[in-house]
């Protein structure tokens, strides 16, 4: 006997009705009844979302406390930095010249942000903020953590017990504690570690904590790549009479890193999300600037809109990376 309505179609019907209701009320809230003008009074009166908050505060959210008339500089730097990443995603550029491109790009970004040359006004890094700060923390975090993680992974796979023990100790210690505790350590303990009279600024301290944290996680991914290399590759390299470093550089690492690219990108995504934790030690990254904007009396109480917008921006970056990593996985 055939049932007229199967369980499956009944389920579809129920979900469709619920979904439709949710979608309609969301569209009403987010678009139909929403206020787009930066007008607090209209926002408070409206039944819908208040996107006027973002319209009003977008300069602060994007650029933090960077001098207002100089905002074009972090804007160009942001575009440049994103362009560098897009370029690096392209396999055509996976050649030594990529390092040159990055060096030139980062120098340009440094000049734009710091200024002090070519008639640009000097801006100390305490005033950097917004999206560019998130991107800088991410980029420099990856740039320094990645080489460090390769060394850690090699050390953990080393045949020398003392080297191995040091690597295992470091990796497990860092992976066993929350990132927040490392950030606190960087912000309150690091100044105590330095000799008298030497001090490093808050941004650099947070960056160091992020690098040390990311390196431990990346090291485990690289180790996974190293473990996937068949033993005969090592034996063949030894048979050719290569030394340890020759073997590692020419035979082992190129293959191991190639295997490890997709999980590396997932770890990068996690790291990108984790840069938002610097809000806890008072740096003005993208999330902080949103949070601080909400403290303004005129705009308190619009957190739902503000954080939906923030989530969307982070989502665009992270989802792009995750699509890329999936594409690579299929092709490699």
């Amino acid at each position: 006997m055939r049932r007229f309505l199967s369980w499956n179609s009944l389920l579809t019907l129920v979900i469709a009705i619920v979904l439709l209701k949710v979608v309609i009320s969301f569209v009403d809230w987010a678009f139909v009844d929403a206020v787009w003008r930066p007008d607090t009074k209209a926002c408070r009166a409206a039944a819908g979302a208040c996107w006027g908050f973002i319209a009003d505060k977008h300069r602060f959210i994007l650029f933090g406390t960077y001098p207002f008339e100089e905002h074009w500089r972090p804007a160009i730097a942001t575009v440049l930095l994103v362009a560098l990443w897009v370029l690096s995603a392209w396999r055509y550029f996976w050649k030594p010249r990529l390092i040159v491109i990055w060096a030139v790009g980062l120098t340009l970004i440094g000049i734009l942000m710091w200024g002090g040359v070519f008639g640009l006004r000097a801006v100390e890094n305490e005033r950097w903020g917004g999206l560019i700060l998130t991107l800088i923390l991410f980029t420099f975090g990856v740039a320094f953590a990645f080489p460090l993680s390769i060394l850690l992974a090699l050390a953990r796979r080393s045949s020398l017990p003392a080297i191995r023990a040091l690597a295992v100790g470091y990796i497990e210690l860092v992976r066993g504690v929350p990132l927040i505790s490392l950030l606190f350590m960087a912000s309150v303990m690091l100044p105590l570690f330095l000799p008298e009279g030497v001090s490093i600024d808050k941004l650099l301290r947070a960056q160091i904590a992020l690098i040390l944290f990311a390196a431990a996680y990346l090291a485990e991914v690289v180790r996974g790549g190293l473990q996937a290399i068949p033993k005969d590759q090592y034996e063949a390299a030894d048979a050719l009479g290569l030394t340890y470093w020759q073997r590692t550089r020419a035979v082992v690492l190129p293959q191991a890193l190639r295997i490890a690219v997709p999980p590396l990108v997932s770890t990068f995504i996690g790291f990108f999300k984790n840069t938002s934790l610097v809000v806890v030690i008072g740096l003005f990254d993208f999330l902080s600037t949103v949070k601080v904007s909400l403290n303004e009396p005129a705009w308190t109480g619009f957190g739902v809109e503000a954080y939906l917008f923030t989530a969307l921006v982070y989502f665009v970056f992270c989802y792009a990376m995750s699509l890329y990593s999936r594409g690579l996985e299929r092709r490699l």
Partner: protein
Amino acid sequence: MKKREIAYQVAAVAAVLFAIGYLVSNTLTNLEVRRIASGFGFLGREAGFEIGESFFMRYGAADSYLRALVVGLVNTLAVAAIGIVLATGLGTAIGLFRLSGNLLLRTISTAYVEFVRNVPLLVQLFFWYAMITETLPVAREALEPLPGVFLSNRGIYFPSFSGTPVLQGFNFTGGAALTPEFAALLLGLATYTAGFIAEIVRAGVLSVGRGQWEAAQAVGLTRPQALRHVVLPQALRVIVPPMTSQYLDLTKNSSLAVAIGYPDLVSIANTTINQTGQAIEGIAIIMLVYLTISLTISAFMNWYNARVLR
């Protein structure tokens, strides 16, 4: 072992010891110069600050720092334990939905997983906190989805052994309550981790060969029966190890509580550091506690994994 290899190792260990020694000596000088006390003597002193909420323990401002930190630890463990249970349930359901034959169900759960995994947890926590404190009505107009359960911007009130919540003035009294901070943290941790657990469960179920499904069908089991008795027990072998790291992550992520004002261990240690100035001891306590928790969960899950593999 060759002489050169021994030399390398001695050099590496010496370098690390030298670096640590250098930092320690700098620290000692700095502590002396800044006249910061050291040692754990402060633990016995009166804390002098109130804690918004605590599970199973009574605490007042007159109690010691040690007791305050223990209250924080219990708060951390409580939110982590409940979070793990909720995340596992939600994650397993969504992971199975992603394999469902129903296209709509599959699409929605995929969208959920993609969204939740690609947005920082901290943003999600702030979002939930704003949702609770900004969109829920004031206590006087609290929503009552179930009899005796009240949702308002003061938190969630529900009946317990001590009675049912009653509106008194601007808030409810009686019954049990979840503060907005706890509710936001729990909701955020559970929904975020569920996105990752869903992927683990899905991969685990997919790892069981189709032949197993067909064999289960051949002996007359229905799909849910096959899932329960044939597929899941085998999938668990693949699921347990990555699940362990999700549980560890959730526990470590509960330290984000400090950002929305839930008094967990990190948040109380932070207050302690600010009051006593003893940063090194405070951070050492945080790290030691989390390392212990991490190792304990790992050990338990290893034991469970060995049982599943048997």
